[in-house]
C-alpha cells in the first residue's frame, strides 16, 4: 500500500511537469497547425539561461523563472517571426515545410549550445536540491514538489489568459478557425507569432523547474520533444485541458510501469498508451473530457 501511494504521488508530481511541457506544444499545434519539433531544444535554451543566472549571478533557479522565461518567450517570437512566418505566408509552401523548419531550428540551437557550453554535463546544486519532506512514511523530494506547485500555478495562469482576456479569446478563435477570426478583425499573423512565443516560454519554464532535480547538456531536448508529442496526441490535438490530463496520465502510467513492471519499460508504457489512444480514442482525452 505504501509503495502504491508513493508511486501514485511520484507519478502525479512528474505528471504536473509533463503537463507544462505538453501544453506549450499543444497551443502551438492548435494555432499554427504544426508539431513543433524544436520544443525540447527550446526547453534546453531555458535551462541553460537559468544555469547561467545561477552560476554567474547566484540567482536561484525559481527566481530566474522571471528572467529566463521572458527571454525564451522573446526567442520564440523571434523564431516564429523570422523563420516560421515567412513559410506560412507563402501559399505554395506546404505546412510540412514549417515542421522541417522547426527541426532545423532545433539543430541550430543544440549546436550553438554545444559551441558555447561544450558537451559537459551541468547541474544546479541548490541548498534544497536534495531536501525531502516526510509525509508519514512517504518521502517527497522538495524540488519536485515546488516544481509541481509552480506547474499548477502556470497552468492556471494560462487558463486565465486563454479564457478571460482578449488575447486569449483571439488565440482560441484563431485555433478554431483562422479565416473566421481574420474576418472578425483578429490579426492572425500577430496571434500566430505570439502563440509560438507563449508555447516557448512555457516549455522554457518547465525546463527551469526540472533543472534543480535533473541535469543539463546540449542534447537534453529530444527526449522531452517526444514526451511533449505523446502528451499532445494523448490529450487531443490543440486542447490545453487535454494536455494537462495527458501529462498527468503519462506521468502516473510511466511511474506505475516503472515500479510494478520494470524501469526499463518505462518509456514503453507511455508509448503503448500512445498507440492505444491512437487506435481506440483518435480524438485523444479531449474526446472524453468534452472540452
Amino acid at each position, binding site marked *: 500500500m505504501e509503495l502504491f501511494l508513493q508511486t501514485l504521488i511520484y507519478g502525479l508530481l512528474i505528471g504536473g511537469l509533463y503537463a507544462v511541457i505538453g501544453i506549450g506544444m499543444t497551443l502551438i499545434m492548435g494555432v499554427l497547425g504544426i508539431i513543433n519539433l524544436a520544443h525540447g531544444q527550446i526547453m534546453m535554451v531555458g535551462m541553460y539561461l537559468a544555469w547561467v543566472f545561477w552560476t554567474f549571478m547566484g540567482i536561484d533557479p525559481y527566481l530566474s523563472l522571471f528572467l529566463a522565461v521572458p527571454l525564451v518567450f522573446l526567442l520564440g517570437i523571434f523564431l516564429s517571426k523570422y523563420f516560421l512566418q515567412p513559410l506560412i505566408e507563402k501559399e505554395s509552401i506546404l505546412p510540412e515545410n514549417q515542421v522541417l523548419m522547426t527541426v532545423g531550428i532545433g539543430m541550430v540551437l543544440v549546436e550553438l549550445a554545444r559551441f558555447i557550453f*561544450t*558537451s559537459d554535463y551541468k547541474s544546479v*546544486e541548490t541548498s534544497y536540491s*536534495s531536501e525531502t519532506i516526510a509525509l508519514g512514511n512517504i*518521502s517527497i523530494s522538495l524540488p*519536485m514538489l515546488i516544481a509541481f506547485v509552480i506547474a499548477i500555478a502556470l497552468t492556471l495562469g494560462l487558463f486565465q489568459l486563454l479564457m478571460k482576456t482578449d488575447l486569449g479569446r483571439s488565440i482560441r478563435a484563431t485555433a478554431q478557425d483562422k479565416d473566421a477570426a481574420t474576418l472578425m478583425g483578429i490579426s492572425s499573423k500577430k496571434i500566430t507569432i505570439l502563440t509560438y512565443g507563449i508555447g516557448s516560454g512555457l516549455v522554457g519554464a518547465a525546463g527551469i523547474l526540472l533543472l534543480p532535480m535533473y*541535469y543539463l*547538456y546540449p542534447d537534453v531536448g529530444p527526449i522531452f520533444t517526444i514526451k511533449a508529442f505523446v502528451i499532445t496526441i494523448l490529450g487531443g490535438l490543440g486542447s490545453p485541458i487535454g494536455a494537462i490530463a495527458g501529462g498527468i496520465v503519462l506521468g502516473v502510467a510511466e511511474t506505475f510501469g*516503472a*515500479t510494478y513492471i520494470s524501469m526499463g519499460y518505462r518509456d514503453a508504457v507511455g508509448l503503448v498508451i500512445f498507440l492505444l489512444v491512437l487506435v481506440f480514442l483518435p480524438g485523444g482525452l479531449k474526446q472524453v473530457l468534452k472540452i
Partner: protein
Amino acid sequence: MKIKKLLTILVVVLMMVGINSCGKKETGPIKIGVLLPLTGHMANFGTMEKNSYEMAKDKINANGGINGRKLEFVYEDDTGKPDVGRAGAEKLINVNKVPMIAGGYSSSVTFAAAAVAQQYRVPFLVNTGSVDKITQPEAFNLTTNDGAKFYIYRMNPPVSEYASGLEGLLSQIVKPKSVFIIHENTAFGTKGAKSFAKTAKKLGIEVKGNHQYSAGTVDFKPLLLNAKKANPDMVYMISYVMDAAMLMKQARQIEFTTPKLFVGAGAGFTMPAFKENAGKASEDVVSATLWHQSLPIKGAKEYFDKYVEKFGKDHTPDYHGAEAYSAAQVVADVLKRCNGKYTPETIKKALDATNMMTVFGPVKFTSYGKKIHQNKMNTYVVQWINGNLKLIWPEDLANAKFVYPIDWAANWK
C-alpha cells in the same frame, strides 16, 4: 571567346592542383579514422577520448611522426547511435579511404561499426566498446581459427571481466550476502549485469533483484524503492555518467542507507562529472575500473598530469582517456612497423605482431575462450574518498586505504 579562354586556364590550373595533390600524397599525413560519440548523451566520454587521441597525436608528430610522415586522425561522430555509427564507419572507409579505424565507445555502436569494418576488411582497433561478442568471431559467422579473416582488435577487457578485480575485495573484506543489480537496458548494461550475476553466484552472493532502466530517466525512485525494500547488502550499478549521478543522488533522497556498499561497474562511476553532479552522494562509492593514474605503468602519471594541465583541474581523465591515448600509441607503433606501405593488409599483419607498452598497460592481442585479437588485462577497484578517486584494490597497488564500513547516513547529512 574570352570566357572560353578563362575557362581553359581555370581547368588547367585545377588539373595542376589535382596533380600536385596526388604527388604530395606520398609525403602527406597518414590518415586513420576514429569513431567516437562527440555529440549526444555520451559526448562527455567521446570528448575525453578525442582529447586524448589529439594529445597522443601531437606528441607522436613532435617526435618525428610515422617514419617522417605526419599522423592524422579523421574523426567521425557516431552520436551514440548504432545506425549513425554504421554510416560513420562506412564513410571513413569509402569516402576518407582510411586504411584503419580506431575508437568505438558504446558497445552497441562499436558492434555495429565492427560489422562494417569486417565486411570491408579494414582493421578496427576498439578502445572502449566492451560487450564480449565484439572480439568473438562467431558473432561474425567465423570461427576462432579464422584469425586471418578477422579484422577486429580490442585493447580494453570485455565487460564480463570488468568486475574481476572486485572479487577479491568482496570475498575478503566485505563478504556481502546479497546484491541488487541495477543496469542500463543496453548491450553494455545487460551483458554486464548477466556476468556479474554469474560472479555473485560463484562467490555465494544471493541476487535479490536484477532491474533495468533506460538512459536519461528523470526519476529513479520507483526502482530505488524496490531496491530498498529488497534490503540487499550491496547495490551493483551499471550506468553512464549522469544516470550514475542521479541514482546516487536519489538513493540519498530516499535514505537508502542499509547497503554495506554501493558499487559501480566502471563507465560513469569513475568520471569527474559523476562526482561534480552527485556531490555529497558520490562520497565512498566504490567502482570497478580498468586503469588508475597511480598504477606502476610507465607514462600513466605523466599522461594524467599533461591532460589536467591542458584541459583544467575539473577535467581529470579516467580509464576512458587512458584507453584512447594508448590506442593512439598502438596505432603509431603499428604504422611504424608497416614498412611504408599503409594498406589494411599490412596494418593487420602489424597488429597481429603487436607487443608493446602503453600508458594503459601492456598491449598484445591474444586469443582465449571464444575470443581472438583480445588484449588481456587486470582490472582494479577505486573509491571516491574526500572527493578524489583513489585506487583501493588490489591492496599492494593501492594509493589509499579503503573506507569500510561506510556510514551512509553520516555521509549524506
